[in-house]
């Protein structure tokens, strides 16, 4: 595609600059020098400075060089649902227990795939919960609540 900027390099560069700025702001209160040598703030600040430079270089390169291939299509559904399913697990595991968290995880992540079939998905969720409960709780003895903790069942 003639005239198309190399977007991947520009995006990478901008992303890195943003991360570096965040890190720099967070590390601002930390001292860079103490009387015995470098302080806790030295490394974070030096590295975020370096990262800004590298990010800027990437942006510059992206603006200069033309992209040889068209960018791949982006699809929101797999990203949102896969990440969402894991976030659901993280949000529910502590208070709602393994059964709720895993069922949600499997159902949401299966929805990420347009070819998913309902009956198969439900069977997979049920199988996963039983399997995980046996392997992780009984077999390995991990300390994870099985049922919602507010119900008081164990």
């Amino acid at each position, binding site marked *: 595609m003639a005239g198309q900027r190399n977007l991947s390099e520009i995006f990478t560069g901008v992303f890195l600059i943003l991360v570096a700025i965040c890190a720099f702001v967070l590390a601002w209160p930390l001292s860079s020098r103490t009387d015995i040598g*470098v302080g806790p703030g030295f490394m*974070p600040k030096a590295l975020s400075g370096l990262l800004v430079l590298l990010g800027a270089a990437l942006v510059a390169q992206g603006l200069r060089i033309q992209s040889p291939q068209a960018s791949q299509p982006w699809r929101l559904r797999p990203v949102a649902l896969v990440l969402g399913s894991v976030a659901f*697990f993280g949000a529910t595991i502590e208070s709602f227990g393994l059964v709720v968290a895993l069922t949600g995880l499997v159902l949401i992540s299966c929805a990420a795939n347009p070819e998913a079939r309902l009956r198969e998905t439900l069977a997979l969720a049920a199988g996963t919960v039983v399997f995980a409960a046996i392997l992780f709780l009984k077999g390995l003895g991990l300390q994870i609540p099985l049922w919602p903790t507010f119900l008081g069942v164990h």
Partner: protein
Amino acid sequence: MEILTNLGNLGHGLAIAFEFKNLMYCLAGCLLGTLIGVLPGLGPLNAIAMLLPISFHLTPEAALIMLAGIYYGAQFGGSTTSILVNTPGEMASVVTCLDGHKMALQGRAGPALAVAALGSVFAGIVATFFIALFAPPMAKIALMFGPAEYVSLMILGLIMAVVLAQGSVLKALAMLVLGLLLSTVGTDVISGAYRMTMGVRSLADGIGVVPIAMGLFGMSEIIANLEKQEPMTVVSGKVEGLWPNGEDFRRCWPAVLRGTALGSVLGLLPGGGAMLSSFAAYVLEKKISKDPSRFGNGAVEGVAAPESANNAGAQTSFVPLLTLGIPSNAIIALMAGAMMIHGITPGPSVMTQNPNLFWGLIASMLIGNLMLLVINLPLVGIWVKLLQIPYRLFYPLILVFMCIGVYTIGNSGFDVFLLVIFGLVGYLLLKWQCEPAPLLLAFVLGPILEQNYTRALQVSLNDPYVFITRPISLGLLILAALLMLVLVLPSIRRAREAAF
């Protein structure tokens, strides 16, 4: 004399590796390694990251024996998928696709699989002895290293990781710095100050290596696979006639020898390991062949050499970890994490303070390789069947393992959210063609680098020239500078792009 002592120690290690429990974990590691090696989109890095939390419940010996089994087991399994499906089961088997799959299309899948497995076993056994003889003297050298030398060595290793990363050098360098930056989050070891924790208590110990590794390599891969939705095609029909013919044997034994030697040496280098070894071995075979045009058209050497090399490289890459305490690639970095979970600091002291772990691990590789030969050759049909499980049933299970694994490390939901964040970052990096391996390596090396840097300055009373006035340190830095220089030379850059 020293050689005899080391062989004696290896014998002692065999006794430990033959303990029933360790034998079982070795078998478990090899089976699991083969499994994830066979399945595309799931490499040793993901598997080790997933099992890291579980290994906490084992003895250190059993944990490392199992995790190591996954690494070299994956080198066996990866070739199966490369040959039969033309999709690399994992990264170190990419080049095996070139000639292995061609052989399969010519109806010679059996010999291709057999050559790959036999070459791997041979390489694995040789590499084990190589480690037993090479690691102890290297540990002695390491004991002479001061903090300044460690800093220089790690800089060299990180630069190597940039050289070996795929794609743009600038991006690889940026990933490296990002990894170092992320590693500074948490409590500063020297001053005790909280750094960039944003008041989150879970971040006081820093960001965990497991959520980062699983997010960047596991989650992003799943999302990318779901986007693609390409059905896989397995070479149909049964694999018949495993045994290679005389012509194959004559052609491949020198290739196996060369691959083993190259892999053993390249595994030792910082930044080296299975992947580098397999690429280098393939290029070497093609270079020295009398008829290079055979390569890419089913040359048996093109399967034998890289498959031997990747197994040898996978095993010898443990040497820098066990002797210097410096992980040379992202997978070994996770092994370092596993050792640290058990309170063992990787480094030259492992050999003297934990001889059972050191020699038991090395000896287990000998046993593991023989197990793998059985797992892979007669049982190859089972693994092929596994390839026919549809991905849609598969990826939710991977997610389940990842979530439970991450959660159980610290029993904190926060780590699971970190997994989500790094999954997103990993996906973006994948889209932007940034290779995340340097990031992970830098993340693990970061704290060690900073500690040694500070210590070197303290020892020398804040003399910033300490890194260039000590000869070994200076030599390592010059090497690193040369590599950097080489990296920006246009001709080398072109060769590098062609190689990857």
